[in-house]
């Protein structure tokens, strides 16, 4: 097990190096720079500012400097806000993470519930209704659902805040908006996994032993039937935490996602590279956790390692 984990971590370093290199090259290949403005500014001032932030050095020099920073565990300093990228991440990531975890919890609870029930009652009206809802959840993007929820729940009914995080209740609408698109996917994966599991021999044996159907489904079948959902949870968690920028923007939540997206428009290279690398690390770790969870859930996989 230890060898497996160490091997994966070593491979992760290569992935992170490639992500850092690719992000650096792609960002610098994009037209425009951090000091392009529609305001009036002389070329001397523009050059002085670029000089100040080392942007007039050759691309190779900048790249090596960037790698040097990363090797020392530093992520650089924001060009636009003069704050260290590490500090930005420490400050804003917990907000995105809280939102992502809440969204994920919403998606997992509702999605698994819908998927299991749909599989259990397959090819009945219950199955059709739940899967139609799942399809709607997948199809309606958060930039449509979010404003609709704000308009109805905040503006019309005045029940929840329309923007900002100011207390636990402020998380409800953003978490629901964020989780909705994943509810549908998780429900469909859970249904598929459960259908496959419910047809297996050990389920037939459990039923033959006279176990109640509820125990067969929720205790025996669910443990194996949920594996596709677990597989999906790694990238889904990363996507939900790192991809919450639309929801953060709609609800004006000061998470890392908004910062990241604004930094693209601002061409804030250190922030972008730093956040890319941070998200890469996050994704690698989450995938590793998923692999470890596989072993815990399925003894056959554990034995194979």
């Amino acid at each position: 097990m230890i060898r497996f984990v160490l091997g994966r971590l070593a491979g992760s370093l290569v992935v992170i190096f490639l992500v850092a290199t690719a992000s650096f090259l792609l960002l610098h290949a994009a037209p425009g720079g951090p000091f392009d403005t529609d305001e009036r500014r002389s070329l001397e001032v523009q050059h002085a500012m670029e000089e100040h932030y080392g942007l007039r050095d050759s691309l190779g020099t900048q790249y090596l400097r960037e790698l040097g920073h990363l090797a020392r565990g530093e992520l650089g300093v924001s060009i636009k806000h003069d704050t260290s990228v590490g500090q930005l991440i420490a400050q804003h990531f917990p907000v995105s993470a809280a939102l992502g975890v809440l969204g994920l919890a919403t998606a997992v609870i509702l999605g698994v519930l819908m998927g299991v029930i749909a599989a259990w009652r397959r090819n009945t009206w219950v199955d059709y209704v739940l899967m139609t809802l799942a399809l709607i959840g997948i199809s309606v993007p958060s930039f449509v659902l979010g404003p609709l929820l704000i308009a109805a729940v905040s503006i019309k009914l005045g029940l929840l805040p329309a923007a900002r995080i100011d207390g636990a209740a402020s998380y409800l609408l953003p978490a629901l908006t964020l989780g909705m698109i994943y509810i549908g996917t998780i429900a469909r994966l859970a249904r598929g996994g459960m259908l496959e599991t419910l047809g297996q021999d050990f389920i037939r044996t459990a039923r033959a032993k006279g176990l109640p159907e509820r125990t067969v489904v929720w205790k025996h079948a669910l443990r194996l039937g949920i594996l596709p959902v677990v597989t999906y949870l790694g990238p889904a968690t990363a996507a939900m935490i790192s991809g919450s920028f639309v929801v953060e923007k709609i609800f004006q939540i000061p998470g890392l996602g908004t910062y990241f997206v604004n930094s693209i428009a601002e061409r804030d290279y250190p922030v972008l590279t730093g956040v890319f690398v941070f998200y890469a690390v996050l994704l690698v770790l989450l995938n590793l956790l998923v692999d470890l969870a596989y072993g815990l859930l399925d003894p056959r996989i554990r034995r194979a390692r």
Partner: protein
Amino acid sequence: MRILVVLAVAACSVPDGDYFGRTDRGEPDHFRWCNQGEPDRLDPAVASSTASTPLVHALFVGLTAYAPDGHSVASLATSWETSDDLRSMTFHLRHDARWTSGRGVTAYDIAYTAIRVANPLTGSPNSDSKQGYERRRDVAPYRAGEIVELTAPTEVDLAARTATRPLALRDLGAAEPVAYATVPAGAEVTLVMTTGERATLPSPDGRPWAYVQWARDEEGVLGWVPLAELDGEPHAGAVLHVRRVDAKNRGVDGVRPELEVHGGDLLYTPDVLGRDRFDPYTIVFECADPTPFMFAMTTNRSLRATPIETVSRWPVRWTRPEHIVTSGPLHLVEWHERDRLELVRSPTYWAPAEAKSARMTVYSMDDQAANSNYYFTGGCDATASNQVPSTYLPVLDGEQRGRPYKDYDVSPYLGIYFVWLQTEKLPDRHLRRAMALAIDRAPIPAFTHGGELPTAQLTPGTPIARLDAADLAACGVTHDTPGMALVMAPGELCYVPPPGLDFDLARARAELALAKDVPRPLHYMYNAGAEAHKQIAEYLQAAWARIGLDVVIEAHEWNSMLADTRAGKFELARLGQIGSVADTESEFLSLFRCGTPDNRGRYCNPAFERLMIEARTMRDRVARNARLREAEAVMIEDVPVIPIYVYTQKRLTKPYVRDFAINAIDQPPLWRVWIDPSWHP
């Protein structure tokens, strides 16, 4: 699906009543403002975003301040004199201005900001001058003290210094033991200024002191040391080429040639202010040419006083609440990034009653819909300008229900929306004129819904029909004169731009018939992300199609569009220009000077240049305006730009909010705003 339908129906209904937002008041002594985003910085020397400017004005005093009507009035300076030749202004400062640290605010604090803005170490976007060096020694044909500049960039840091013993960085005149940073012996520091020089503090003990920067980490640290301790100059022997800066050496006749010198012959100078009669309560600004708008420029955010003791210790983080020292009517106590800032009435401002509310919360919301929604639900008492999404505008201005909401306001903005034409790629003046004449601007506000003021004139202003009698007299027009006028000093001075090339389809066709080698298709560039730009692009495309021009419209990402237009890689591009001072010469016409980087259209006409240069030397402001008008007339007939409309400011303000000033430059003195406890629906 049913849930979605219910949500959609709920979302589509509009509020009834006189006001768009809820009108239940918050705390009586607390003003809550929805700003247009996170301020990039609050340091006057480096702040550059529109979200930060009103906050900088509230936190730091300048020589002058914006009055509610947007014109500059006395602030730190209580009186001033302008020289007859309009080249020099002397300001006399009040003696009762205090930093929140308790120290008095002096002219040196203003000079310090100017020095920081000009110094490359600061990386200020507000700087607008080349680095200047002062000659230390006479080397014919130059004299010591003359200002020179490098003729070619150098990799050498001429301001680098070293010391053979450790340097104790401290406040000016402080004893060595109270130093807040120690530079190791031999480590390189950068000389920023010395005592007793141009606009710098005098020596406290008769010996010269040096103010240096030490790059000990990403932020660095600054401080004073006795000049004699800087005994090493690493690049004194570097060979450089310089030439005299004529504009900074008035009185010296003749052209001076390029000269080869050594790094040690030069001294970096913060050449920003005049030397004469400079003392803690007097400051003199000198310009090479008559500069009538110099007074208004002193209100600019980048010329606000900054406290040297605090900046020195935390050059980047000094505006964080735990470090900040302020001088304005408000003081910063909390800053939650990307969420909100909390400001309170300053205990040391000389007129505390000016800050009408004891507390002000500024929400950093960069999404228009979120801003308006938050306002609607009572989260804030007013929004910054143009924080209303375009989809809300037809609702707010009453198109749906027949009457506008009373808490929605639209007023003119000192800004012009225009189309740049790249004159090197479209050199035929007839083609450009045809394109300008083909546009009927009048219907545009009907689909942009923002109350914009269609115009063919370049210089924006107020519609002449809305001027009062005094301004009409100053402008020399009557109410029925069409077009705009820029009121530069209420009732005293006014600029009336020449009429532009307004819609005339027959003339457009005639001009096009004279055009040669019309490129087909033409390409029109606009920035993606705003529906109005796309709508306008489609409208213009249709207008040009009517005279037979094939124009392809292309959406571009904002930064790449800025880079492309600045590099001249376009044919037609939508952009705009916002003025910060009511002066067309500095804010609008200077865009069209030959070779300036802001001249995206690469326009250059010697006749326009000549008129602008003539105007620059004129002291009579009315005559000067007349000459500028001639220049604008030349330019507008050449059509390097096609003006479309004057921008408007759209904002939401609760009915119980008082003294929220709306002015053309969108600089409301926020500290004057208060909540009326006696207001009832």
